[in-house]
């Protein structure tokens, strides 16, 4: 999933498309055979999407209107509930609490990731060759760490008794942290999850930001410096405007990625203690798969999709508009 993340800037990659697109007048083969070619080429991709994504989505929608628990599952019963699952969820407190928690959690993480990631990217640009290589290799190793492995390592780092984090805090004079149980309370569990997620996400933002800054024409910087611009002013007047598509695409991806973060939260403490660190994906999973309320879980997952779409609507509209301009 981390990758999914890294699902990277692909969103924007398409944009180079416009360079390669021939003007309509120049296109080859106006005959019928050529007219079919693009559709033939796209059939496998579209068919796969319809079967392996479309079908589960439809199935999920149908499930969300059913009363499906262990009993119905075993006996292959189909009981319809209409909007019952939805009214139960929307009428209860838990869903809203988890939604607010998910939005705050995503917001905090994305702000941290973008701010620190950009700072580290700019630092990379300022470094000499050798030091840049050292930092890059460290970032790449972090980036490549598989999520589940990283989560396991963080559990070891934050282990109450023999974890190195508690040892360091103790030595720094914070003796009450000597055997601190990080997964014992909501905030401290979230703290560990946030450190883990931010640590994992920074390399992507930093390395790509650095690579992106190398494409900015040097003259722009020189001109800005001549006008007497300071570091901050150079960033806001040259770097940021030039890399705006990058910032938009990366922020969008990080929102999706943090919002959907599953193995990190699940493996650290399964959404505990007392379900206090459940975010929407974990909530849907726990209700549906864990507690065997499949219909309810399906309804929650549909609402989760709606919340995610709401959080990313701005970017989607922007990209759509851009595609329109190009077409």
């Amino acid at each position, binding site marked *: 999933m981390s990758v999914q993340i890294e699902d990277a800037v692909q969103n924007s*990659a398409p944009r180079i498309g416009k*360079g390669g697109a021939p003007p309509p007048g120049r296109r080859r083969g106006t005959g019928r055979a050529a007219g079919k070619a693009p559709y033939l080429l796209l059939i496998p991709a579209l068919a796969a999407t319809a079967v392996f994504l479309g079908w589960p989505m439809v199935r999920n929608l149908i499930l969300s209107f059913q009363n499906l628990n262990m009993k119905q599952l075993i006996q292959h019963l189909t009981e319809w509930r209409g909007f019952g699952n939805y009214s139960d969820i929307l009428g209860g407190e838990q869903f809203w609490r988890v939604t607010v928690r998910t939005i705050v959690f995503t917001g905090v993480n994305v702000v941290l990731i973008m701010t620190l990631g950009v700072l580290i990217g700019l630092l990379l640009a300022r470094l000499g060759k050798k030091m840049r290589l050292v930092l890059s290799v460290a970032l*790449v190793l972090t980036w490549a760490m598989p999520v589940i492995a990283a989560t396991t*390592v963080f559990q070891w780092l934050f282990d109450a008794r023999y974890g190195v984090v508690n040892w360091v805090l103790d030595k720094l004079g914070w003796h009450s942290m000597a055997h601190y149980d990080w997964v014992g309370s909501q905030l401290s569990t979230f703290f560990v999850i946030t450190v883990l997620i931010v640590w994992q996400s920074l390399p992507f933002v930093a390395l790509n930001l650095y690579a992106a800054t190398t494409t900015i024409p040097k003259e722009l910087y020189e001109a800005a410096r001549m006008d007497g611009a300071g570091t901050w002013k150079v960033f806001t007047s040259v770097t940021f405007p030039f890399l705006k598509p990058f910032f938009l695409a990366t922020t969008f991806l990080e929102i999706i990625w943090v919002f959907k973060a599953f193995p990190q939260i699940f493996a650290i403490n399964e959404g505990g203690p007392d379900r206090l660190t459940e975010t929407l994906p974990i909530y*849907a999973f726990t209700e549906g798969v864990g507690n065997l309320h499949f219909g309810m879980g399906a309804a929650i997952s549909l609402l989760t999709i709606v919340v995610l779409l709401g959080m990313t609507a701005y970017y989607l509209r922007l990209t759509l508009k851009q595609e329109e301009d190009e077409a």
Partner: protein
Amino acid sequence: MKRSLLGRIWPNAAALVLALGFVFPVYWMFTTAFKPNGDIITEDPVWFPLNGTFEHFSTAVNAPNFWSLVGNSVTVTVLAVGLSLLIALCGSFAVARMRFKGRKGIILTFMVAQMAPWEVLVISIYMIVRDADMLNSLVPLTFFYMLMVLPFTLLTLRGYVAAVPKELEESAMVDGCTRTQAFVKIIFPLLAPGLMATSLFGFITAWNEFPLVLVLNKEPDKGTLPLWLSQFQSQFGDDWGATMAAASIFALPILVLFLFLQRKAVGGLTAGAVKG
């Protein structure tokens, strides 16, 4: 521009501290895996594995089903990434090179598909796979993983295809190549870096996938390595040496692959991001 001594020192100092901070968890994973238990369960951490041992690795490797799960993971990952590259290459060529009705809608479809919340679709996927009587099989996993990486692969490759000058292809066709020949001979070699970069991300996604395999493949020898690692950890509880050895074995292939291919990966992705 001249910078003061301090101005030259602080970025380097900051970089060094950051590099250590980033690498430490990876370092700690590997070194813990080599330490004898006495050096792991101590009140004061042992920073270097001076009394190195392979004992934890043999515990991990000899854990039940390890090798069959390695086989499963490799099979599923390679097949999923290979299939998605093939399908995405066709699709990206159509989207980048041809104008046709519905193109915009198709691109949007893949963008939305890329946001697919697989984590919350596990319930319906479970139902579908169960009804098809294919639980504990690698086939559904392979196909779902293929689709998890497909939209990303297609959209990224689209950028690479578009970046190949159209004239190259046209001149090949003037020289008597068919469109297909022009593609195989001229474009495909130029796409190699793009294919490597995108497959790298595909590999990580498929290698890492957790929620789906957790629900679909419950039989002990039918899962993949992420599942093995999570179960290994609960099974071995506080045996951090063995757990870290297991995590190391799981992480190593990707770490190596990444170090080899990172230059291409980083540059490739940004090429698309900036040329707005």
